[in-house]
């Protein structure tokens, strides 16, 4: 059965590219542009999310707050999260690690194929 990935990204163009690549590699993809959409998608999927790809700079509630809420959630609290962002100040990396992430990847430093490699290593 295909693994499901939730892409939380407010830039539609980037989100489209990420989704296209993930679908080509056989993953089911759900997308969300903000916190409300992310938790609605999780509820719709009844928590059946295998990995969250999370941007940090989002309108309204930022990625850190979404990550905090994911970790507090009884159903998906332990889901692997890859932060995929162009924010990478030391404080951002520290805070994300403190909240429990699997990887912190800087968008401009990686290609989508390298992102897929990381995802494969985490959930197959």
């Amino acid at each position, binding site marked *: 059965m295909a693994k499901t990935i939730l892409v939380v990204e407010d830039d539609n163009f*980037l989100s489209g590219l990420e989704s296209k690549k993930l679908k080509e590699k056989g993953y089911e993809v759900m997308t969300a542009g903000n916190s409300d959409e992310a938790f609605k998608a999780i509820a719709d999927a009844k928590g059946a999310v295998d990995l969250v790809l999370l941007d940090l700079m989002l309108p309204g509630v930022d990625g850190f707050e979404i990550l905090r809420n994911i970790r507090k959630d009884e159903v998906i609290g332990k889901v692997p999260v890859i932060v995929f962002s*162009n924010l990478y100040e030391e404080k951002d*990396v520290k805070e994300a690690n403190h909240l429990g992430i699997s990887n*912190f990847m800087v968008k*401009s*430093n990686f290609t989508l194929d*390298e992102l897929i490699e990381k995802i494969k290593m985490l959930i197959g």
Partner: protein
Amino acid sequence: MDKDEETNKTDTDLTTLDLKGLQEEYLKLKELSSVKSDIVSIAAHQIRTSLSAMKWIIKMFLDGDVGKMTPEQENLMRKAYEGNDRAIGVVSELLLVNKTEAILDKQYAFAKVDLAELINSVLFDFTGEAYARGVEIIFLKPERMHSAKADKDKIRVVLQNLIENSIKYSDMHGKVFITLKELDDMMQISVKDTGVGISDEGRSKIFQKFYRDPEAEKKEVVGSGIGLFTSKKIIADHGGQIWFESGPGEGTTFFFTLPINK
């Protein structure tokens, strides 16, 4: 009141007024500088987002995901990919300069600093960059050692400059060795790379502001030429020394020392 007393009084009043005015101007400039720094940071983030999209799209073309290209088209796309990566480098450099300026504006705050912990933390920040360039970083440190007396934020800038250079100027799959040891009253840190090395011309100029070594220019690596200049100033302000050993094509080792915290 005689004439001299009157003159002195006027001078004193003017000085007080001048000082007050200068203080107000200083606070205004400081606020302006902080706003400028925030604008640069936000703009850089947005530019980097667009450049990431370009990088991924061009890569899709190069990988044949959207159809086969002619050799000429492929060649042009490869050039576009390299150009885009250079632009990403320019934005990163801009952010680094912006951040360095903000840190240098602050007064020195000397405290006990665990250098091994600081080096590990800086190395973590470069994980992505090292991975992307296939550069292996090896940190060799003794089991036990003293702390340094230093300004942690400013020494972080020095380590970032040296480690970033060692990755940038290494060939793909190069190696970077970092060592930390004690020498009498000083701690010595070294960062050795297997990169392009420093030219004969650059040996006397490498710490000058805005200087870029011809070997670095040949490699088409983006740089502002202020990293080593800033590092030298910071280390001198700590009462330490910074120097290097290098030759063209032989790699480079940068050393710096900091006083031990007693």
